[in-house]
């Protein structure tokens, strides 16, 4: 019995507030250190690419940002689903705290992709499957944020946003595959879990360091934002 109560102890915004502050501080520090290490490996250690020259180095920002942009939508939708199912206030706050970070990473992925596409494909933007579904993902984030901003009552905003996020998360794979079927030019994924990566190991190290840094940044930013939301609402 006591175990169940402990589980929900931090579901209360008041008791979560100091914990969020501690975790956020640790994560900010970790994100800064890992980003420093990742950028060092990316810019000074990793070898120059045989085909793309130095331009490929944007991969160290681009790929982790794209990973995070998709992953954060899932995280946001799970918080939203938990909020709807268990009716906890904090879950809705977490979902709305994650949305801006997710939108930021989606935008960074699109932006760095455009800068990378110019030297390699000769165009800032092409109507390729991955670019298009990333753009649709950005619209989904912006729609979520706009819906929450338009509703004055925070509880209704949380629940309406939660429903939208769940509808969105059901649609994301459908959108992804329909767009992929529609057009594909983007290079295949360079990293996958099932086969050996098709890149130098230092490149992979740099990318994974940056991915970890972005993870910690996301946690830190979301928790810092959720602290602001708690202060605002409670």
């Amino acid at each position, binding site marked *: 019995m006591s175990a169940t109560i402990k589980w929900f102890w931090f579901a209360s915004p008041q008791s979560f507030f100091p914990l969020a502050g501690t975790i956020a501080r640790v994560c900010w520090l970790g994100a800064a250190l890992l980003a420093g290490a990742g950028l060092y490996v990316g810019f000074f250690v990793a070898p120059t690419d045989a085909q793309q020259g130095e331009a490929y180095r944007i991969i160290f920002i681009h790929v982790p940002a794209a990973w995070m942009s998709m992953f954060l939508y899932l995280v946001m939708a799970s918080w939203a689903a938990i909020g709807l199912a268990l009716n906890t206030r904090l879950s809705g706050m977490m979902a709305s705290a994650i949305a801006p970070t997710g939108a930021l990473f989606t935008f960074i992925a699109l932006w760095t992709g455009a800068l990378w596409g110019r030297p390699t494909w000769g165009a800032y933007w092409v109507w390729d499957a991955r670019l298009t579904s990333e753009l*649709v993902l950005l619209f989904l984030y912006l729609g979520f944020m706009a*819906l929450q901003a*338009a509703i004055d009552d925070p509880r*209704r905003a949380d629940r*309406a946003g939660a429903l*939208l996020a769940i*509808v969105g998360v*059901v*649609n994301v794979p459908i959108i992804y595959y*329909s767009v992929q079927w529609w057009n594909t030019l983007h290079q295949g994924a360079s990293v996958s879990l099932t086969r050996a990566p098709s890149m130098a190991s230092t490149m992979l190290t740099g990318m994974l360091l940056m991915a970890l840094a972005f993870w910690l940044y996301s946690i830190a930013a979301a928790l810092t934002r959720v602290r602001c939301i708690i202060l605002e609402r409670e």
Partner: protein
Amino acid sequence: MIAAARCVVARDLLLALRRRSDVATALLFFVIVASLFPLGIGAEPNLLRAIAPGVIWVAALLSSMLSLGRLFAADHADGTLEQMLLGAAPAGVVAAAKVLAHWLVSGLPLVAIAPLIALQYDLPAPLYGTLVLSLLLGTPVLSLIGAVGAALTLGLRGGGVLLSLLVLPLYVPVLIFGAGSVDMAAAGLSPQGQLQLLAAMLVTSAAFAPWAIAAALRISTE
């Protein structure tokens, strides 16, 4: 349950019949948007033939979105919606019935008039069947997905623009397969794959969207 659904459909159709100009406006919008494209990009017949499926589908998308605002707004304003949700019939059934009525009023006329637009774009006659079939399968999906957005934005400021931001990204697969089926037929291939995918989307959204709409209405009316 069936009786309640039939009652809601009949009532909404009767209301639409009494306010015929509302129905006509969305249809006119569809025709006008589709007629603007040749003025903007030139009347070269080959070009028009090539873009016809996409233009007709995008116009259908916008027109169906435009009429979504009316789906629940009037009932919400005079309290009918709350009574319906409080009533004995499951909210999902009421939602499905309202969407069906909305599609009969806004989607079906659009399907019927689409060949006329296709004529303007000089689309070859054998493609009309595919175009109409794709719209017939696709527009109910638009109504079902759109209704979730309409229910969520009920009574919010700036509802119309917000609705388009929420709903249009979700329309992407329908647009791709809808316009894709006609493009496929135009290329001399069988459009069956796309049409079957559209049908699959229709079945899936018909099964799940009513419950999402009902949940959204509960959130918006509490």
